[in-house]
């Protein structure tokens, strides 16, 4: 039997790795990949909680499906923005996209 805490520990570690990617990578696409890792960690936690504590209701599964839909929307808009920025300023390095920086 796999205890619930194993899934939660893995989720925490995966979230931290994704957070490091978001904070430290310079390439905007790599930052998006870090966000995907964080969303996956959240999904894993949601599904583990559903399976171990509330598997008589469907709420956890629906939660994961909604997070998946939001992730798909987020990555589509994010990549469109990155490609648009690349076309106009020919850079995708996050620190060079500083037009709005005060």
């Amino acid at each position, binding site marked *: *039997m*796999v*205890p*619930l*805490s*194993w*899934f939660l*520990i*893995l*989720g925490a*570690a*995966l*979230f*931290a*790795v*994704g*957070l*490091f*990617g978001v*904070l*430290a*990578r*310079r*390439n905007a*696409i*790599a930052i998006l*990949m*870090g966000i*995907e*890792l964080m969303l996956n960690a959240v999904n*894993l936690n949601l*599904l583990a909680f*559903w*399976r*171990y504590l509330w*598997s008589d209701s*469907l709420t956890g*599964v*629906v939660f*994961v*499906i*909604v997070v*998946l*839909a*939001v992730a*798909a*929307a987020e*990555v*589509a*808009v994010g*990549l*469109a*923005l990155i*490609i648009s920025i*690349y*076309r*106009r300023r*020919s850079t995708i*390095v996050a*620190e060079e996209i500083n037009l709005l920086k005060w």
Partner: protein
Amino acid sequence: MTGPQIIFLAAAAVTLIAAIMVVTVPRLVHAGLWLILSLAGIAVLFIMLDNGFLAVVQVAIYIDAIAILIILAMMLTRAAMSDTEPQINRMWLASAFASLIIMAGLLWIVSQAPAASRGPLVDAEVGLDALGRALVDVDGFILPFEIASVLLVAALVGAILVAMTPARGD
């Protein structure tokens, strides 16, 4: 150590190592391929949580759509950043520190949770039938379902608009 525990540890190790490679390898395309491996590990864990449907959805949406989209975007923007220049910024040490603090906090919360050592509930068969009905049931989840659909349509139309070729003289 029982069979499920060994499978869990193997899948978790693959997921975590692949995730670490995603954020550390200098070549961006390799990072994308590691991302696919990490997402596949998550799909295995979904199967371990007795939800084969979401595992299939994970493969179909994350690996098939999102990862491929990311790799395509990498190929479209390849000229912007060579693989030889540094891929992490000068704040990486502070970033690693912040991530470690967040992870320590999360682990502390997990250690405080009363249900952390609990085993899975028995007979957790989620019927696809029941899930499909609940998603369009007025007493179920029709509102989040419809909001998610509207969000997807709006996001995709917006993505097309944003990524459209700019007009001449723009």
